[in-house]
């Protein structure tokens, strides 16, 4: 049963790692805006490229 001492240590350590991960996420602002990223993923880069080819070859100002 002495293995429990080791396991308890492991479990506390794991929980501490998760807590630290949460702190890091909240510090870097990952919870600040949970709405806009959902939109961002829907924007289509492909269409954009084909547009450029079709419409004009003007240099960007």
């Amino acid at each position, binding site marked *: *049963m002495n293995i*429990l*001492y080791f396991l*308890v240590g492991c*479990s*506390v350590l794991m*929980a*501490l790692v*998760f*807590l630290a991960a*949460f*702190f890091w996420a*909240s510090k870097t602002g990952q*919870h*600040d*805006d949970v*709405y*806009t990223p959902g*939109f*961002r993923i*829907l*924007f*289509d880069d492909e*269409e*954009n490229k084909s*547009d*450029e080819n079709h*419409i*004009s070859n*003007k240099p*960007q*100002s």
Partner: protein
Amino acid sequence: MQNQNKIATKELCYHCGEPLDDIKLSLDGYDFCCTGCKSVYKILSENNLCNYYSYNDSPGKRTQNANHFEYLDEPGIINQLLDYKHDKASIVTFYIPAIHCSSCIWLLEHLYKINEAIFSSRIDFLKRQVTISFKHEEISLRKLVEILNNIGYEPLISLQDVVKENSHSINKSLIQKIAVAGFLMGNVMLFSFPEYFGLNSLEKQFQHLFGWLNLAFSIPAAFYCGKDYFISAATSLKHRQINLDTPLALIIAMLFFRTAYDVIFINEPGFADTLTGLVFLLLMGKWVKQRTYHHISFDRDYRSYFPIAVTTINNGIEKPIAIEEINIGDRLWIRNGEIIPADAILMKGDAWMDMSFVTGEAEPIHKVLGEIIYAGGRQTAEAIELEVVKPVSQSYLTGLWNNENYQTDLKKQNFNDRNAKYFSLGVFIIAFSATIYWLFNNDNHKAWAAFTAVIIVACPCVLSLSTPFTLSAILSIFDKKGFYVKNTDAVEALAASDTIIFDKTGTLTCTENATLSYTGILDHYEQTLVASLIRNSSHPLSRQILKHLHYEEFLPVTTYSEIPGKGISGTIHHQKIYLGNSSILPKNTAIKESNGTHIVIDNQYKGSFQAVQQWRSGLPQFIQKLAKKFQLHVLSGDTDQEYAALKNMFPTKTKINFRQSPHQKLDYILQEQRKNRKVMMLGDGLNDAGALKQSDFGVAITDNINNFTPGCDAILTGNSLNLLPNFIALSRDGLKVVKISFAIAIIYNCVGIYFAVQGTLYPLIAAVLMPISTITIISFTSIATHYFAKKNKL
């Protein structure tokens, strides 16, 4: 794809979706309603940003006329606005009210295509903010703002932006505390489980370890997560008051010391599980209570209405300076559409001031040279020169915010804090009598056990949770209906109000739906003349008048001229036509009324268009509903021309006052409050700001939630005004729910106290009782709130 779009938007502007007028502007086969929309399209198509139009149909918004951003070249102002400045890059955050759809996100995040000096731009959609990082050596802040303005996303730069509030960081520290409390609670639960199920001899060796681990986890729970409760309790005791945090702090301390004692001296498990669970739940309650509306600010004052800088003239040189640097004697240069930031004397030019924010009077007022113009007025004619007589913060209007009357705010106590006193007293009486009983019976151990157990089990935890959960459920019901209340304490103030005071303009009437009425006669040919002239003007009033006229064709106009804020004139078939306010008309014209838009054709006065304000829909029924339960008053800054209409709508005993200055409104509220009435004020403009702040519950009414609203306790959209009686009823029911849940909590407490006074409260009982009572209360409050919401038809 593009063809489909074209068909769908044939009759509408491709950019903004407004119906097209007779004048069509076309580019690349698309039609636009105005040059503004067309030029935005042009910029976007030149930069390969036409994807903007593929995510939504007509995603744009019609833009206003050109703005002046010279002040953004001032280093002092730039430094105030920038979030961060590096030797190569700068980061700035703007609030852009026009952000409303996914196309906006797409466009604003592709700003780098328009100018390569922009590294990246990120949108926060709910806050309508865009954070832009750019190379400040290649593009100035002013240029950046002009780009945004040119594509139809003008940032709102006001003084309030400069004075950034740090409410955000407070919230962040609470979330961190919740995370820590959750971590502690989870671990303590894990180590307490063997204790719950009973330990066999093999496991006994771990009891010591688990006990000490639990104690170790209790230390941050009590002194990091629970820190705020101790601070709050200490401050309230310093003021010789007891708030709800006082017993909570006592219980947290008691739980901790009892746990420490049990673990260290008698090798028992202690109450670590209850302690960590309690702290976690308390913090959750606090978090629910702190919910905020990102897009709405309730603490706005004149600073968010005023611009951040103003142009001064010094020896003929124009120079923009920050508002707070304005000194007495400075010469200001105010252009059409700009706001006067400080009380000043008119020195040069023709002033037509729109004082609607100051007085509530909708018509522009003519000021002559040498007259004092109060801060907050908006110039609607040509550029004028003024000399400042008072600094910004002490001006007539801004002084309202520095009024000493507002100190009374601190004394407002909510339901919980009022009851905390009696609650604490009751707990102490029970705790001491149990202790004394066991001391008489010579059982010292039981006396200590009973004393601590009573205090632990009588925890007002439920009380501190039921209020935030109930009231925040009510808040979310309110905001679905367009009623945004500042916080949960404000809901209690709403429920307590018994007197309602209305402002008239913008509150009872709807400023956006003003209709035109014409006094005078215009024959068909004259209507054609006016229409031909007016179609050249893009002024909103011109468009409204154009809709009013009957005409088949347009005649060619020669010598057309438009004077901003005054009107237009032109010649058609040698007939000279004037259209505008009284200052543009030929000198000898006799006019009946000074207000309105007048028409003169060939020196003959033809009549005038008057804007007639519309009462909000359903107003009479709404007033009748309120009159049954509340005392009603009307305070208007306007003239008394609507007296008869108001008199009809309101019950006979209603006091209706006209020509009230902002200060008179404030004093009126004070008078009512001295009569011990709980006053609710409904207003809209800056002129009501003082009254709104002084009232027990100030409601700002607005037709567009992004418009400026003065500081208040709640913001109500104009369409939802009819629902006000239901809102008040629900808030009262909400307090009822809180009281019932209080009774339920007491039943649970009695069960706990039954064990506690006998000194036989095992940690397991406490640990079970607390979550059960919490779950009961939270589910009861949410069910009851939704039941009452249905009952009140919300």
